[in-house]
């Protein structure tokens, strides 16, 4: 059953998806090890979403310790921020746009040590796949 995007239930579903994914567990076994791997996804308001939304993911060693929507579009615990318009995120989550392409072409803005993110491209691709795998109901 579809879970409404932006809710605590959606964040919980994503955490479950990540922790149940052998793809993510293998691809991300070094993510967040020796550096802060927490990610903040910022879904910026646009014509498809009236307000900013941010999703905080606490990640290390191939698992997700916590996933929650937060009010601010920055977070002191985030090692990286991926920021983009809600429409683009929706395309990514609906698999119409590859996240890697969005990051590498600069459509998704990266805050944090970009090279570290690039060195773990496979981990982040697997994470986006998990995110896109949550059966999502849109507003």
């Amino acid at each position, binding site marked *: 059953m579809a879970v409404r995007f932006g809710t605590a239930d959606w964040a919980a579903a994503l955490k479950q998806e990540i922790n149940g994914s052998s*793809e993510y567990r293998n691809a991300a076994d070094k993510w967040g090890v020796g550096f802060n791997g927490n990610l903040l996804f910022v879904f910026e308001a646009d014509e498809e979403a009236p307000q900013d939304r941010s999703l905080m993911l606490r990640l290390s060693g191939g698992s997700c310790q916590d996933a929650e929507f937060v009010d601010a579009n920055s977070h002191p615990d985030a090692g990286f921020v991926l920021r983009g318009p809600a429409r683009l995120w929706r395309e990514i989550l609906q698999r119409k746009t590859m996240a890697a392409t969005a990051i*590498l072409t600069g459509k998704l803005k990266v805050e944090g040590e970009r090279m570290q993110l*690039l*060195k773990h*491209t496979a981990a982040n691709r697997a994470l986006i*796949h998990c995110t896109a795998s949550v059966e999502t109901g849109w507003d």
Partner: protein
Amino acid sequence: MDRLYRPLEEKLNGVVLTPDQLTSDHQTNFGRLHHWMPRFVVQPKTHQDVVETVRFAREHGLFLSTRGAAHSQSELGINRDGILLDMKSMDKVLALDQQAQTVDVEAGVVWRNLVHYLKKYSLVPRVLTNNLGVTVGGTVAMAGIGVASFKYGSQGDNVLEMDVVTGAGETVTCGPDGPEEELFWSVVAGLGQVAIATRLRLQLRRFKPMTRTYYLLYDDIHPFLSDSEKIMDDSRWDHIESWSSPCPQGLKPVDGHRQPFAKWFFPYHLTVEYEEGSPPDDVAMLAGLTPYDNLYTDDLPTIDFFERMIPVFELWKKAGTWEFIHPWMECVLPWNIAADCINQILVDLSPGILIGGHILLWPAKGPSSRSRLFMRPEGENLVGFGILPAIPPKYWDQVRPILENASRLCVAMGAKRYLSGYIDFTQEEWETHYGDKWDWFAGCKNKWDPDGLLNPGFVPLRVPPGAARKG
């Protein structure tokens, strides 16, 4: 008959072909991604034929593209509605100077033929590409990389002098130093944008008659790179060549689809030349290296070593993959991020993509090249990395984003693309690729090819208003 056929044909000693006389080969290149029909194919016989063809193209507002063996994969070596100058017809070895170890050749000479011409003198061009079926003019226009590039740079670095015809139809003799050095260095790795080389003087070297090649294998890229530093820093080796080879492990999910995955190994072929009867000391040669395995040691006549890839290409041709799409993604990576970048790409790369192709690695020395337009990252040590697949056309849409993202990842991590492959840069990406050389390159284009005639459709250098029109 085309109204321009007779006026063009009358000016030339060479041959002029019209579309009804062309094979499909003239409409595409090794990439087989683009299929363009030229209005004329000119097969020049002489330097003056090239001069006359350029002047004719200027006079009639026709774009002019140059073609050697057409091993490029993007919009090079092909032409739409203009003149395709097929330089393979200028294939003479002009003069050998054994004392100076130089040879003068026409631009359409195929490297393999030159190797055979020179072998009786025990001389060889310092750098040979793996594929010897390409032309001297063609690879110099790209840079030209081979298994001895770690010592001698690109093939373009080993050109001592050239006669060129500029886009304005003027003949200039130029060299790497001296008054026309700017023109020279805009022709080397210049993608045929400013001038067409017709005669090149190449630096040669003496070779020993036999080679011994050690087939080493690494199971991890880090010791491979560590040993590469040692190998490049001492003078033991004459040729170094490496790949990444998959050992399929089964299926794993990638983006939710189960696809084949592999453990990637790194074969390393290290070759030394030696005199007949005086083979190298194997223990001394391999001292200090730490391969996972030492698989095989092969002795070959050096000429056979130069031609070692021919049986591989013959296999590809027999298997039919030579006729597939070849959207090769080659780049030069900074040393410090090479391992991470290559590992990130290989971990999700299905080995199935490589049927009829391979992953190429070539450790290199940045300072070994003086070329201004063979763009490479800064640093003493560099790593060339190439994904060289042969793709059945029906799978192109599926494979394309994988290769494009591999390219973007490499570039984002500091790599420079090698431009003979599949390139789909935006204007901004082109300018980023050339960096502070962009304006210089564009200036050379405007200076020597003022009408923007030469090799349009690939690198989008700015040209002034009044540039040549099609047709």
